[in-house]
C-alpha cells in the first residue's frame, strides 16, 4: 500500500465509522504498523487544518474520528436541531468529577465526599451513560464500584483519563485554606472580634501557619 493509499483508506473508514476508531484496528485493517496509522492521522489532521476545512480529524476516547470545526458551531446548530444533550446540573457535574478523579469508588464513598445522598444523581449519570459499574469492592458488603465511560471521554473531548486536568490544580490555594481555617477557628484569638480578615498582621499569618499541618496533610493525601 502506498503512502497516499493509506491516507485515503483512513479517510474512507473514518467517514463511515460511528464511533472513534482505534489506531490498532486501523493498523490491522490496512496492514500497516500502528505507528504509521498515527503518523497518517496526524498528517491528515494537519492538512485539514492548514487548508481550513470545515471538519477536523481529532483523537477522542482512544480513537480517531471526524468532527466539525468548532468555530462553525453556529451553522451546524442551525442544521442539527435535535440531539442536543441537555446540560448536567451542578450537583451532577460535581458528582461526575468525583467519580472521574477517584474511580473506581462506591456510591457511599461519593456520598461521603459530597456530604449528601447521591443515589439519584448517580442514577442519572448512569442512565446518561457517563458512569457505569466497573467492579465490586472485594471487602465486606461487596459495594458496587463506579467509573467513567467512553461516552464520558467523548463528551469531554478527551483521548483518555490522562487528559483530565490534574486534580492538584484545583486544590484550594493558601488564601482559601486560610479563609476556611479562619472561618473555623477554635480558640479565641487576641484580635478584636470585629477585626476582619484584611486586618491580619504578622501574628495572624503565623497563626495560620502554625496549624496548617493538619489541613495540608490532608490535601497532600488526597492528591496521592
Amino acid at each position, binding site marked *: 500500500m502506498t503512502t497516499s493509499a493509506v491516507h485515503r483508506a483512513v479517510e474512507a473508514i473514518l467517514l463511515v465509522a460511528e464511533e472513534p476508531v482505534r489506531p490498532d484496528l486501523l493498523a490491522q485493517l490496512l496492514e500497516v504498523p500502528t505507528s504509521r496509522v498515527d503518523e497518517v492521522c496526524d498528517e491528515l489532521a494537519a492538512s485539514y487544518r492548514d487548508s481550513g476545512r470545515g471538519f477536523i480529524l481529532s483523537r477522542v476516547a482512544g480513537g480517531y474520528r471526524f468532527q466539525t470545526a468548532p468555530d462553525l458551531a453556529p451553522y451546524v446548530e442551525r442544521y442539527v436541531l435535535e440531539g442536543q444533550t441537555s446540560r448536567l446540573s451542578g450537583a451532577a457535574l*460535581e458528582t461526575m*468529577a468525583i467519580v472521574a478523579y477517584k474511580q473506581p469508588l462506591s456510591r457511599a464513598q461519593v456520598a461521603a465526599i459530597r456530604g449528601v445522598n447521591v443515589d439519584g444523581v448517580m*442514577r442519572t449519570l448512569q442512565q446518561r451513560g457517563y458512569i457505569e459499574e466497573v467492579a465490586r469492592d472485594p471487602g465486606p458488603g461487596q459495594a458496587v464500584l463506579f467509573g467513567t465511560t467512553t461516552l464520558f471521554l467523548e463528551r469531554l473531548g478527551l483521548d483518555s483519563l490522562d487528559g483530565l486536568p490534574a486534580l492538584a490544580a484545583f486544590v484550594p490555594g493558601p488564601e482559601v485554606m486560610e479563609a476556611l481555617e479562619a472561618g473555623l477557628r477554635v480558640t479565641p484569638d487576641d484580635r478584636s472580634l*470585629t477585626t476582619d480578615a484584611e486586618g491580619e498582621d504578622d501574628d495572624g499569618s503565623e497563626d495560620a501557619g502554625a496549624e496548617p499541618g493538619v489541613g*495540608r496533610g490532608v490535601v497532600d493525601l488526597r492528591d496521592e
Partner: protein
Amino acid sequence: MPYEVQTPVFEGPFDLLLHLIMREQVDLYQVPLVHIVDAYLAELERLDVVDLEVATEFLLIAATLVELKARRLLPGRDDVDLDDELALWEERDLLLARLLECKTFKDAARALAALGDDAARSWPRVAGLEERFLDVAPDLLAGVTAADLKAAYLRAVAPKPTPTVSLEHLHMVRANVADAVAELVDELPRVGRISFRRLTSSLIDRLEVVVRFLALLELFKQGLVDLDQASSFGDIEVVWLGGATADGDGDEFDAFDIGDDLVTTALAGIDRYDG
C-alpha cells in the same frame, strides 16, 4: 452586623458552609449565631423529610458550628479540659478537610463543564454506512431468538433499579480516633519506622486516612511517636518512640480514655456511616 443569609439551593451541608465562609469572606464568628443556625434550619425545611441522612448531616454541622463558635467566644480559661480541646480540634480539622475536598471538586467540576462545553461545539460524524455496504454488514440479529427478545423486553420494562434496601450503607467508614490509636499502638512497635503513605496505603476512604492522621498527632502529643516531614507536601516519616511492646497501653492512655466519649461524639459524622 446585619447578615442576610441568602441561600440558593445548596447541595448539602458542606456546600452551604463553604458558601457561608467563602462568599462573603465573612468571619463566621462575627455572624450572630442565630443567623447561622437559622440558615441551617431553613435548609432543613427544604429537605425531603424522609432523607434523614442529609438532615442529620446538616444538624451535625450546625451543632459543630455552634460549638466552635461558643468555644471561641469564651474567654481563655485555664481549666479547659485538654481532651475537650483536642476533640474540638479534631472536629474542626475533619470539617476543614471535608470543606477543602468539597471545594476542590467544585472547581474540578467547573473545569470539566468547560471541557464539555468546548467539546460540544464540535459534532462528530455519525452518519454510518452507505447503503452499498449494508449487504456486507453482519446480521446483528444472528443467533437472537424470539425468547431472547421477550427476555430483553421484560428487562427493559422492569422497574430499575431493583428496589432492594441498599446494603452499601453498611459498608461504610468505620473509624474513630480511639480505635485508630489502638491500631497504631499495636502496629507501630512492630515496624518501628514507616512512612505515613505506607501506613495508610490499605485505607480506601479519605476519612479513615484523616482519622489515622489525627491518631498519629495524638501519639505525637504524648511523645510516643516522632513525625518528620522533609518537605511540604512530602511524605511524613513516622518513628515509634514508645518502646518495644504495647503492653500497658491502658495506663498510657488513661487521659485519652477519659475523652473517649467526646472523641466519639466529635466523630459522630464518621460513625454515622457505620450503618
